[in-house]
């Protein structure tokens, strides 16, 4: 147990990062019934922007720039690649998402020259070493889960108690009737992408400060893990995505702690297969009722 403690702490932290990405998947799925394959790449872009901006600007300028750029990217993706396909079959939307994913990776390749960009201690405060219960770790491992939980609470409160939150919940169930009520569907969808991208940007900052470099494919694996977390928790459900993310983060790190590092990803993907076979709706998922 003593030896596993650092892994548990790391697992909670990884879980927080996955949760911040997973919420983006689950929100977008909830409203568009679309797996936004470009989400992991949005996460990667946030990391790249952080590397570029923190090296030349003070933090109070660079961090807002990272957040704003990521939000603008998420918003633009929806407007350019998904909005024109609003009445198209869902499959077209998915293909468009895959296209966007490759497009972003290739643009990033063009800009970075294909080399991984080293992350040079962008936010010194969170990278300082601290001791929790006798285990030494970086401060970011403590900051991540706390910030994640805080943001989740704000988000859930917002969706429950504001007008646009009510519009989101209505639209996620029934577009046509929501429009009849006067809900502006396009605004609600844009808003969903903005929230998802914002959280991914926060997750990206926390993830990459603890990581040696950002490569153009850096978003794929965390993106996939977060996606699995969202499916495991029940896609469309915010608490589901968060719980799923923490469980996956913890399990992966524990497996590493037990000396089976090679299998940590295998575990996650096996989990996806099992969930899809046994309980496709996930832990907290709604029953699948196709929109009429």
């Amino acid at each position: 147990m003593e030896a596993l403690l650092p892994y548990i702490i790391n697992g909670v932290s990884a879980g927080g990062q996955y949760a911040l990405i997973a919420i983006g998947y689950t929100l977008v799925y909830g409203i568009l019934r679309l797996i936004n394959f470009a989400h992991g790449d949005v996460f990667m872009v946030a990391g790249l922007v952080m590397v570029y901006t923190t090296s030349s600007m003070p933090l109070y300028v660079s961090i807002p720039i990272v957040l704003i750029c990521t939000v603008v990217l998420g918003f633009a993706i929806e407007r350019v690649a998904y909005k024109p396909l609003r009445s198209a079959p869902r499959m077209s939307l998915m293909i468009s998402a895959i296209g966007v994913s490759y497009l972003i990776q290739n643009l990033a390749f063009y800009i970075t020259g294909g080399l991984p960009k080293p992350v040079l201690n962008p936010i010194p405060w969170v990278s300082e070493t601290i001791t929790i219960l006798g285990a030494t770790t970086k401060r970011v491992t403590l900051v991540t889960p706390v910030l994640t939980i805080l943001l989740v609470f704000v988000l859930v409160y917002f969706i429950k108690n504001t007008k646009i939150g009510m519009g989101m919940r209505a639209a996620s169930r029934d577009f046509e009737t929501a429009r009849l009520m006067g809900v502006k569907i396009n605004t609600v969808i844009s808003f969903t992408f903005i929230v998802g991208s914002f959280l991914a940007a926060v997750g990206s900052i926390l993830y990459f400060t603890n990581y040696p470099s950002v490569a153009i494919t850096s978003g794929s694996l965390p993106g996939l893990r977060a996606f699995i977390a969202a499916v495991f928790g029940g896609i469309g459900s915010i608490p589901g995505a968060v719980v799923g993310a923490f469980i996956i983060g913890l399990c992966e790190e524990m497996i590493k702690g037990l000396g089976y590092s090679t299998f940590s990803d295998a575990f996650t993907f096996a989990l996806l297969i099992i969930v899809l076979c046994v309980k496709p709706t996930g832990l907290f998922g709604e029953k699948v009722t196709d929109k009429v």
Partner: protein
Amino acid sequence: MSDIILSVKDLQVNYGGIEAVKGISFDVPAGQIVTLIGANGAGKSTTLKSVVGLVKPKSGSITFNGEELVGKETTSIVSKGITLVPEGRRVFADLTVLENIKIGAYLRKDDLKDDIAWVYDLFPRLKEREWQLAGTLSGGEQQMLAVARALMSRPKVIMMDEPSLGLAPLIVKGIFDIIKEINKQGVTVLLIEQNANMALKIADYAYVLETGRITLSGTGAELLSNDEVKKAYLGK
């Protein structure tokens, strides 16, 4: 004759690859109850959806107080004072009853207290169930909620698509009493029904729609005693 508040002229709509509405015209005078009756697939729902902009007509014109509605966004049409209680009620199942009522007033920015009190007065049952999720209500209660939700936008014209569908006769009678009450309070009603008997009894004026065309029209009482209508829709 009172003023025409809603007027449909030569409306043609293709829906799902078929010609659902083949050039119909009708008028809805302000303050009255007008009904369109007809069998399944006659084009009734499509007509109402065209009015609120959920379906784009192929040709024709729909005017509200003289203002053209074709081509306008649903949001802007609803904000002018037309609302639709959709077929199958379509309440938001995982919102509470109160939230469903509030979302009906999504476009309004003023105080809703009086209007909430008003719809609770019309449907006391909903007040008892204020905090329940709408999905847990019975069919009749959901229909009441759908009507209450529509009223929250303070419409001048309320359109109802098959409000009696799937409800017990006693509940249907209650719903129709409410429709009359709403109308008495000054809201114009455009009702479409398969339950022709009930609809014609409360209607000031009625149109019969058959496979995309209007085949008959007259006051509710006239159509009730019309032989063709009796045979085709009243089962007599």
